[in-house]
């Protein structure tokens, strides 16, 4: 049987770190963690132990974060945002389609990395660099990247949660992958 008295000790900092990553705001993150535990206590009679405690609490937190995104209109008007920033974003990574067949610009051209990738995955500061790079992404784009790659949600759920079309979903994934690759290249793999 889960013991709510142990939750803070066992999962407090973990849930808090997820909430900070997703909201970029420590005070909000604190509130969300507290609300998560209190909601979980109320929902405890329905908890059948089908998933483990950690997964269950993380799911409750994630639902609260989706509500928070909605309240803050984080993903509202994704459509016009993507149209407005299309030229400035893609223009900094690719030559125009009509010239030199839309090749990468000189500054954005992917380069071979000189640091071992296998080694990176064993190092805790590599994951702090991921935090940093996610933090540098535009606030409208980062939540979709996190949902897909960190929460491993499927595209259907993400489109529903964030109320975005499938084509906008792919544009956001495309942009965030370009940004993440570039950020890790500059700050980690070529340093």
């Amino acid at each position, binding site marked *: 049987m889960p013991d709510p008295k142990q939750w803070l000790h066992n999962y407090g900092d973990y849930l808090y770190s997820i909430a900070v990553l997703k909201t970029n705001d420590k005070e909000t*993150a604190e509130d969300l963690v*507290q609300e998560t535990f*209190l909601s979980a*206590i109320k929902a405890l009679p329905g908890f059948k132990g089908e998933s483990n405690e950690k997964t269950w609490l993380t799911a409750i937190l994630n639902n609260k974060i989706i509500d928070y995104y909605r309240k803050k209109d984080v993903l509202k008007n994704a459509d016009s945002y993507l149209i407005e920033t299309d030229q400035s974003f893609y223009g900094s990574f690719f030559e125009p389609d009509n010239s030199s067949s839309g090749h990468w610009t000189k500054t954005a*051209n992917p380069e071979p990395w000189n640091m071992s990738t296998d080694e990176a*995955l064993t190092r805790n500061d590599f994951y702090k660099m991921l935090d940093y790079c996610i933090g540098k992404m535009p606030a409208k784009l980062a939540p979709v990247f996190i949902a897909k790659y960190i929460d491993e949600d499927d595209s259907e759920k993400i489109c529903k949660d964030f109320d975005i079309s499938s084509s906008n979903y792919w544009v956001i994934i495309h942009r965030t*992958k370009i940004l993440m*690759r570039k950020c890790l290249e500059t700050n980690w793999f070529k340093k």
Partner: protein
Amino acid sequence: MPGNKLVQKIIWTMSLLKKISFSCKEATLIAIQREEYNTTFFKKLKLFIHMAYCAPCRLFVKQTKIISRAVINYQDVLFANPHHKLSAEAKETIQNKINNTI
């Protein structure tokens, strides 16, 4: 010179291939989508042609796959080593609220 003709033919073929294939922007998008679902034969062919002559895009695909693989470990790493810690005051407040709610 027959060699010259061959070179010309190769250049001509390459420029034709470039014309019917993707730009780097399109190619990287389709390559990312391919990780999740199958696409039309024609798009696959165009992608294949693009990747055959575009080393930076090959590198992009390889490196973004490495990143996807790395990010999957993130939650486990974070559980073992949280990047942020709740302050002592916040912990006290939350623990009291939990104790009062049980």
